């Protein structure tokens, strides 16, 4: 009996050191040397300050920015730490809505999002794209579809006092196609686009 159990104990300890420390630490060292930016979270700095990560979405409410998708992430309630409250784009607590497609509450909430979008974008020329009224799986989706940008474009152009055609040309340059022309979907990184907006047409203070 002991003869069978002892190897199991020794092997567990040895593998814990080898695979639990050796492997991840070696990978951290090698990855950090080969791909330093990615390994540390693809952080974006502006004027020496971290403004976010190229891979992580963040909230935008102002009309002169493009808005991201709805986010269902939550955070601790400041008034009562045992409870959670909605905290969109909380990048230390990723989650989707897990809403049921047949629930009355979900359909009503989606209707409210549609109404709000229509009110914010009275000049939109295309129907509401589905990604703008559905919460992403992570709550941190950094992208929206080209249609979702086009939907918001008249609003942003107006708020930035630029011609729509000029803005559309800028957006086209920031649209990422399918990977290798085949994989995934066309998309635009909202944070990167908004950073460029601020550079091209700085807001009047």
């Amino acid at each position: 009996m002991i003869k069978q159990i002892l190897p199991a104990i020794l092997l567990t300890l040895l593998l814990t050191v080898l695979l639990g420390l050796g492997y991840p630490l070696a990978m951290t060292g090698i990855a950090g040397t080969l791909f330093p930016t990615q390994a540390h979270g693809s952080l974006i700095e502006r004027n020496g300050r971290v403004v976010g990560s190229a891979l992580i979405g963040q909230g935008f409410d102002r009309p002169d920015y493009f808005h991201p998708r709805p986010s269902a992430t939550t955070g601790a309630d400041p008034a009562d730490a045992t409870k959670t409250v909605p905290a969109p784009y909380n990048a230390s607590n990723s989650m989707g809505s897990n809403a049921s497609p047949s629930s009355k509450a979900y359909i009503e909430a989606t209707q409210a999002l549609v109404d709000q979008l229509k009110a914010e974008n009275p000049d939109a020329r295309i129907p509401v794209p589905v990604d703008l009224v559905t919460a992403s799986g992570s709550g941190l989706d950094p992208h929206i579809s080209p249609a979702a940008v086009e939907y918001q474009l008249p609003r942003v152009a107006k708020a930035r006092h630029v011609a729509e055609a000029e803005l559309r040309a800028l957006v086209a340059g920031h649209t990422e196609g399918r990977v290798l022309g085949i994989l995934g979907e066309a998309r635009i990184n909202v944070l990167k686009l908004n950073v460029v907006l601020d550079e091209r047409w700085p807001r009047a203070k």
Partner: protein
Amino acid sequence: MNAAGILQIVIFFAVVTAGAIPLGAYMARVYTGEKTWLDPVLGPIERLVYKICLIKPDQEQHWTVYAFSALVFSVIGLLLMYAVMRLQALLPLNPAEMAAVAPDLAFNTAVSFTTNTNWQNYGGESTMAYLTQMLGMTVKNFTSAATGMAVLVALVRGFARKQAKTVGNFYVDSIRSILYVLLPLAVVVTLALVWQGMPQNLDAYAEATTLEGARQVIAQGPVASQVAIKHLGTNGGGFFNANSAHPFENPTALTNLIEMAGQLLISAGLVFAFGRMIGDRKQARALYIAMALMLATGIGFAYWAEAGGNPRVQAMGVDIASTDTAPGGNMEGKEVRFGIANSAMFAAVTTGTSTGAVNSMHDSFMPLGGMVPMVNMMLGEVIFGGVGAGLHGMIVFVIVAVFIAGLMVGRTPEYLGKKMEAREVKLAVLCILIFPLSILGFGALAMVLPVGLASIAAPGPHGLSEVLYAYTSATGNNGSAFGGLSGNTLFYNTTLAAAMLIGRFLIIVPTLAIAGSLAAKRIVPPSAGTFPTHGSLFIGLLIAVIVVIGGLTFFPVLALGPIVEHFALTAGTLF
């Protein structure tokens, strides 16, 4: 559904098959002890491991000793992982200052990772210290995968050997699985993932000030090294709460392809390794075709259901057409970079294999779309299935299929020259019956107890789906979830852990008993009366057996869950 989506599905199957055939040839050499090109590097390490751990690699084990070793190795790992979670607040590498994990949650999690399930009643970035993710999750991802691979190899030896008393050495099979297969692949995949943007660091969570001036704390960690093995080992436990939907855990469509292919690669490769080890590659090809057909059907069905979108959302004037500039369909719980095709495909792959990683929230799938992952799991996790576990589950179904064929023609059934007698068929049926017993038993319990009902988030039939999905996922050792269910309660932590243990060990032990019983038999040469098991007739029979057993058992409860929800939603009823 569109051409671009279908093309991506075809490419995926091509990539997996192209990788699995050479990997299968390589793994066959690993398990038969032949020389491989990695021997010069890994041979000395392997011998050192045997020496340190007092393992005698030449000493073969009777199936009972093999099973005992697998159980002891699992239990010791489980205890160590539990201890690490309970003590993490006192240990280093905890920059986010995570507190000790509560006892019931730590128990559930330790069981979950030991059984290759990786069901998670916690969010990684809000619960686990970096050291816990490394010593606990990452290590278990390797060892639980290796255990499944070892059990399969023992079963295959049962077919390959004649009148033998032993089925191999559990420790040798596990160690060789880790050193020669899992670890080298994990190193390569880790670096590919980091190149594509996945973090791999021990930094504190990053603090950012957003363009609008808000504070955003961005979770970090040694993500890639864990995610690589999470897929290769069909484990599926996310580093982050949102799993592979999180942009750090699956940054691009290319990582998505790597993660999906990674889940299938070893399971599919083992089918080909099986063919080589029994010296009849046509048999392996038949099993591969049966698995691929079932997987493709599931992918197609889920893609169709999700691309159709939610009729109530469409009625609001929302555009749900899939085009080159919009993903369309039902995008609730899905990411733009993956769209519909890659989300539906991932859902079918992660539940056909027993991985359970998710790149979209299954709870928000359309009723019939969400039924696909559920059915994949209910069929016994044999559509490629977990590494090792999938194929040994499939062979159990093969035994039942040849038994039924034998009944029809009135001959003693045989498979690969071994006569299937009362003992093997009884053990096979035992493996199959454990599934509905656990899923429907625990599910029924949860649906009548107030503590079970209290955790349900969705009203109406979708609520039943949440509970049904949970016990199916736990028993199938899958680990994906309808995430609306609040699983972190004493009731669910305990009952789900029980379901995971049942689904793992009450299948491993009878499977190894079959292995031992087969190894002791003679090999009968095929005769004119032997039912051929490599042709399309057999593939059809095998699929029919799997679907009929799964269908008859679970159709009633599926009718009360996703099917009635689908018809209600189509008719305009909400809950």
